[in-house]
């Protein structure tokens, strides 16, 4: 039993034919071939599958795809933008993760970055700051120090006026 579900995926309208209770994670990875979103636990604990749905960071393993009908979904693949020279440009937070050592094995990184992006856009969503904003995203490699530094670096660069339209 499948049905058509339409949502905005990384800025473009997308219609998938899927079981309404299929996990958004599987629809992204299999139907949409967007494998940047990772499965770490499948039970909403690790955050590796975090995407942004209508502005909020959400774990896609816990979302039946029918719930995103009519919503805006953003995955890690939608973060890069096209520069004037035709080359893809990394988002500030992606650059900061590379520069500051925020990614090690990388499996938590896409989800961690999406959670960080949601926080950068709406800092009031986590009054306790970066650590609170990322509490739902587990990293086993870094001890979080360099991840915090990555997010802080991105915030500083946004404040100093680096081009940040997204």
């Amino acid at each position, binding site marked *: 039993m499948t049905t058509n579900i339409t949502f905005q995926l990384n800025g473009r309208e997308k219609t998938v034919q899927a079981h309404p209770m299929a996990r958004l994670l599987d629809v992204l*990875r299999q139907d949409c*071939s*967007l*494998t*940047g*979103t*990772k*499965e*770490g*636990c*499948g*039970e909403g*604990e*690790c955050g*590796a599958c975090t995407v942004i749905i209508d502005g909020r960071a959400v774990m896609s393993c816990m979302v039946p795809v029918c719930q995103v009908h009519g919503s805006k979904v953003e*995955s*890690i*693949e939608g*973060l*890069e933008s096209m520069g004037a020279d035709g080359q893809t440009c*990394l988002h500030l937070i*992606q650059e900061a*993760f*590379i*520069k*500051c*050592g925020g*990614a*090690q*094995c*990388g*499996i*938590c*990184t*896409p989800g961690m*970055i999406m959670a960080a992006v949601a926080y950068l856009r709406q800092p009031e969503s986590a009054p*306790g700051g*970066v*650590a*609170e904003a*990322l*509490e*739902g*995203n*587990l*990293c*086993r*490699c*870094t*001890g*979080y*120090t*360099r*991840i*915090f530094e990555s997010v802080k670096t991105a915030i500083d660069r946004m404040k100093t006026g680096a081009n940040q339209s997204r």
Partner: protein
Amino acid sequence: MTPSNPTYQYVGKSVLRNEGRNKVTGRAVYVDDIATPGALYAKTIRSTVACGRIKDIQFGPGIPWDEFTVVDVRDIPHNVVELIKADQPVLCDGVVRHREEPILLIAHPDKGMVENAAREIKITYEVEPAILEIGPGAVQTEYLIVEGDVDAAFASSDIVFEETYQTGSQEHVYIEPNGFIAEWQGDRIVLHGSLQCPYYVVKAVKMCFGIEEKQVEVIQETTGGGFGGKEEFPNVVALHAALLAKKSGKPVRLIYDRQEDMACSTKRHPSVSRVKIGVSRDGVLKALDFDFQIDAGAYVTLSPVVLSRGVLHAGGCYRWPAARIRGRSFTTNSPPYGAFRGFGAPQSLFATECAINAVADRLGMDPAEFRRKNFLHKGDKMPTGQVLDVEPNLDAMLDRVIAMSGWAEKRASMKKGSGRGVGLATILHGTGFTGSGEVYLQSRVALAGRADGKVDILVGSTEIGQGTETIFRQIAAEALRLPMEQVEFHKIRTSAVPNSGPTVASRTCSVVGRLVQRAAEQMFEKLDGKSVAEYVKANGSLRTETQFEPRPGLKWDDATYKGSAYGAYSWMCNVAEVQVDPVTATPKVETIFATVDIGTLINPTLAYGQVEGGVAQAVGWATSEKVTLRDGVMANCQMTNYIIPTSVDAPDIQLEFMPTPDPFGAFGAKGVGEMPMDGPAPAVTAAIGHAINKTISAIPATPEDLIS
């Protein structure tokens, strides 16, 4: 403060991670990201008892079994997972020795069907009593190290202290579960996997199927964390996938879900250490008697080597005029324990450091001053008889961590039982394989010049997050005097890269890096001023290879367990500052301060990342990570109830590197990755003990444990 040699172009620089861009964009391909049209989804059917015999296997009704590929023990050419000892079957041979032991393998094109079918397989057992603790079972491996007249040294001690310490198991919780994709191409098997040691898999597959090494191609995909958990365990996953692929004639995906991974995969060995210390009234250590015991689980896996490293680190960084260290691993009916960052050393060093803190307390001495009196120095003899040939610089490292942490003021102002505390631990960690291990491995690396002027680094040493690709490119470019952009890390496929040994034991940067450095130096000489492209054009090819050579004078005797256990040691002084909630008894590790000697920092950002990550894992092991075994299986095999540190739990980590370069490591580098697992736990328990005025002798020290 990060010292670096200003004459180096790349070494000592925080060069950006090689594969960083792929990782932050989601382009990095992990095994589960590979599309495999026409592949079968696989599942492993496991035992539900810890000990017994299989009586009957029933395939239930309502499942189209003819559509399934089912592998049982009869389908296995040689039913052994090849490792140290040939005792572990690929599939259960009728006798069940632990919970979650693999019994059957099933595969089907529809993933949902596989899950449904798995539930309809009913296995009945003749259950036998299981041994699930250290002690009653058979001793699997035993070591004994004796130095000096131990009994006389105790007799002449003013104070003799005795205590028993326990450490719990620990699950790796790499965020990417284990997984393999297997496909036979004619008589050749191709395996894509998440793994640390490609040549372990080659050996296991070769032996199981009775085929030639060249018939096995192991390809490492981007690996989402290992920490030892993907050292030997992937052998089992690879064999299972290969068996199903053989029988079905189709590609097979065997990707574990989190619960299965946590329940069945290897973990840190639980330990019990009985420590007896003799000391003079003025605080000089006289004698050590250390009885180290670990639970090996149902099969040998790597337990003898884990035990060995535990035994070899038990003396810590102290001078013992006399020492007796005995180590035993016990066979039980727990799922086999295996490699985990630190590899036995965190367990024995936990006991050593707790005991040192307790003895200082008994003497009424500051634990820092007590240590200072007893630290190892150049020329001192360790329990194996190894004479330290370099000054460890521990006094300066201790001074610095004490200054950084405000140790003296905090100890004075935080009264015992006040809910706040500080604790100290000072440790060492041997670089690379134990004793003669590196000689036995005979690791090889190669560099190959290409017609386009680039140079490929050919190694089997894997990138698992720690930065192998980046540091090897730095090392090679430095020695070749080439821009880093011209040096590339070759994807690991065993048909293309030599066996540079396993990616374990903190050996990659220092030991394998040294081989890369030498191969690059040889290539530089061979080029003799020509460019790589010119040389390749003129000579057809350009290749240099190096093989491990033991450092001069290093002797180790496996029979007597005497000699130089490790070629080089890294050192670390840790201070933990904690707060314990007076109502809930929840310990919050606020800060870990540490001074760290890993020799030359090839890449400071990566080095910080390694040490910080290890510290966080150690704090988790000490305070929240409890593997609750029920009837021989991990009852809390979910991220919901096995608690690793989150961004809110993780401590602030203040590090300072104080390098003493090792002339035989790559550009002076020593072991990095494992040492930060050793010291934080005893520092944390000392701090908790201070905060609640209680002696902590077992970890994890969860709130429940602290209240009872």
